[in-house]
């Protein structure tokens, strides 16, 4: 339902918490998450859908939150990087793998990589290197040269295949 000044209400579940917000039609999902819900772990790198830094999950699918309008996610379940670690602060195995393999340097692109890889491995736990490379090919990193990221994901994928329960959020 649209109000007289053009704003609309949206109701979303982010990392398990229900939020109600009022947005302009032009408000993007990344703006909703960052500015209105205070979830600044999702970063914005290009605002035109190329770099993948802003990747989050909507109903289990990885999407560019900079190209998604907030009104489009009304009623959806969203997972962001803040939803990966356990409530007590224990890192998600994917996060542990990135740290162990030095899969990050400045860390600005990292949330996007984590969410894209999380979406892939929860959907295809047996994804091989080619499939992993295909997904990583949608994410830009300017620091690492990707080799350590690939190692991180391969390590995480092997771990995931052994213990799925610890993995899914």
């Amino acid at each position, binding site marked *: 339902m649209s109000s007289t000044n053009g704003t609309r209400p949206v109701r979303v579940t982010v990392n398990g918490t229900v939020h109600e917000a009022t947005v*302009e039609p*032009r408000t993007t999902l990344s703006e909703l998450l*960052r500015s209105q819900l205070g*979830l*600044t*772990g*999702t*970063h*914005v*790198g*290009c*605002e*035109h859908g*190329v*770099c993948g*830094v802003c990747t989050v999950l909507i109903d289990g699918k990885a999407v560019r939150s900079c190209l998604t309008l907030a009104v489009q996610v009304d009623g959806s379940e969203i997972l*962001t*990087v*803040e939803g*990966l*670690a356990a409530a007590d*602060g224990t*890192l998600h195995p994917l*996060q542990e793998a*990135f*740290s*162990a393999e*030095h899969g*990050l*340097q*400045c*860390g*600005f*692109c*990292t*949330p996007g990589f*984590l969410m894209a890889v999380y979406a892939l491995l929860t959907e295809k736990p047996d994804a091989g290197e080619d499939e992993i*490379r295909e997904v*990583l*090919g*949608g*994410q*830009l*990193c*300017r*620091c*690492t*040269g*990707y*080799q*350590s*990221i*690939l190692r991180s994901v391969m390590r995480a994928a092997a771990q995931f295949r052994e213990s799925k329960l610890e993995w899914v959020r």
Partner: protein
Amino acid sequence: MSLDCLPVTERRWIGRDVVRVEDRSLLTGRTRFIDDVVLPGMLHCAILRSPFPHARIIQIDTSRAEALPGVAAVVTGADALAWCQPARSTPEGWGLRCLASDTAHFVGEPIAAVAAASRAAAEDALEAIDVEYEPLEPVTDPFRAMSGDSPLVMEGKGTNVMFHRVFTWGEVDAAFAGAEHVFTEKFRWNRVGANPTETFGTVCEWDPGTLELCVYGSIQAASSAALGCAGTFGIPSSKVTVKSQHHGGSFGGKGGARGIVVASMLSRKAGGRPVKWIEDRSEYLVAGGGQAWDRHYEASIAVSGGRVTALSVTLVDDLGASGEGFGALGAAKPLAAFTGPYEIPTARYDLSLVATNKTPVFPYRGMGPPPHFFVLEQMMDIAARALEIDPAEFRRANFIPADRFPYTIPSGNEYDSGNYGEVLDAALSLAGYAELRREQEEARKQGRLMGVGVVSTVEPGVFDWNAYAIVGMPQTGVPEGATVSIDILGSITVRVGFSMEGQGQYTLVSQLVADYFHVDMDAVSVVQLDTRSAPPSFGPGGSRLGVAISAAVLGACQRLTGTLRRVAAALLRAPEDQIELWDGNFVLKDRSGGALSVAKVAATMLARSDLLPPGVDPLPEATYVWTAPGRTPADDEGRAKSYLTAAQAVHVVVVEIDPDTGVVEILKYAVADDCGVRLNPATVEGQLDGSIAQGIGAALYEEYVYDEEGQPLVATLADYLIPTINEIPVTQKTAVVTPSPFTPLGAKGCGEGAIHTTPAAVMCAINDAMAPRGVLLTEVPASPQRVWKTIREANR
């Protein structure tokens, strides 16, 4: 000199692959980047930019914008004229003000700016600003810009030539005149640049009560930014505080000075409300700090008896519309390694810095040697090919011998140490070089274009301002400080003046202190201070901070140990000179008597004034500010002992070219490098990997394209092709370690070596592949179009 200087039986942290202390916050999204900063009453800025490369600004009317809801302030060039000086620049006197007032000099130059309740409202208001322009003829070709009939970028200057000088080091003319062979070629390096995944951003607050300016931002060099603000606004530097946020990469090209000044003016005009400006990606690409090295080269080398006897390089460097980005430093830095790893006795550098109506250039990782070494290494291959010498052996024959270090090159810098032949052997062995040449022979028989590049470069590390003396940097030395402080419970805090930007320097600090005082890394915290609180600090840049901060922290630990030892001597009732720190305890050198832990001594200082020896303050902390020893001011020909260390690397690259499409595929990439002692081998490897990827981008994909009228054709990351994982090969790496005799732990600067080497190596491999066709590609990036056209020339 080495890690053995640490007072422990066994090192547990330094020199090992340790998990970074930075990671946990970054991986959970908790690290606060600049766009995450929200201050009470904060406004948002948007900037109106020139659509013309060169135009007179006849009139600006901001009244409609000012009347829009939520708009708190609008600034234009008139405000800039009233409140600001032009930016400091190299060369001096070529800076512009933050907002153009009468003339627009490049597409994207800021014209006006709005502060409003939201970014969207501010962007809406830009559309209500009416600007009347009179387009002027632009100049985009630096050779035309140098001619007498060119339009002038800055009218008052009377010329577009910012700088021209010829530097002669040794008897160059005689060397060329007496040479058996002289080889000459022209080269073109097109604009590339940093493009960190986070653009520049800032929050500025001009306090009308105290008349002080506070700046938060994704700022690489906070202290330089603070001095810049003071100079621009004509206020005492003690009234400016810069707090650099942890930021998403920089690579020298974060930029942002104009944004800081514009946001500060808006804050001033809005009664002191903080103003946030976050550069969007298109702003960064078109007019941010991301463009570097727009270069036209001509080079000659003289060769006699298989030895290079002279190198002459003529560079016309297109700096764009002003010197505000300090891109000129990148033309000066090659003096620190002009002749690369070779024993070339004479050299000449004919350097022109030219203004055009394009975006000003900024530093980028490597700061100038990447194009220089691209040229030098092509010349080495051109000579080797003509003389029918294997390119690896031609390089070996010209290497500076291992027994000649420290070695002074003709352009004045001194290389600290190295063993170049050993590094070459390691690289050739790792790559299976002999076998590669056999494979290449087979490939050539089949008509395939397979090539091998073998390239060696030197990475000047630990930068010094004196390296840039020729373009107007008067200082010698770059101080970096740290304070090490122990609290009453024995926890250790290290205070530094720089933020995290990806290199893992907080981890390095923690490793070093944890080993020095024999505690766990968790017991050490690293805290960043703002520019008014921190000891002298430059921060990251110039492959310097790892060496500089480890030296500063080591110095502070040693100084603190001296204080603690006086207290320990009193408590142990022993002469001070009989006591030493070992494994975290103060003990007698002969190991008789008791031991006192560092924590206990510190706690005693703070909590038992009755036990404090006379003359000792209750302050268990020490500050040490390090600057590289033995640096010398530059002489008239620019010669100085500048960069303290000289790392060296050999890259072996194998490529195959598809002759039908011009697409280059990298089949193999092997690296041997010597950057001295590796303080955290995993982060050193990360620097190598990232730098190789950027080098491949520069060699094959990345380019800021302008049309002849000066319109940028690159405005998104779909136009500027940053490599993805699928463009970067898996590399093989090996290390040789020649410790630096000049740095406290034997480490050398290592952040830029690969980008010095990679573009040259890839281009040498491409030209090796095309050699049977008798053609040479002399322009980077080697896009499929350029490679295909070059091959077509051969078919004519």
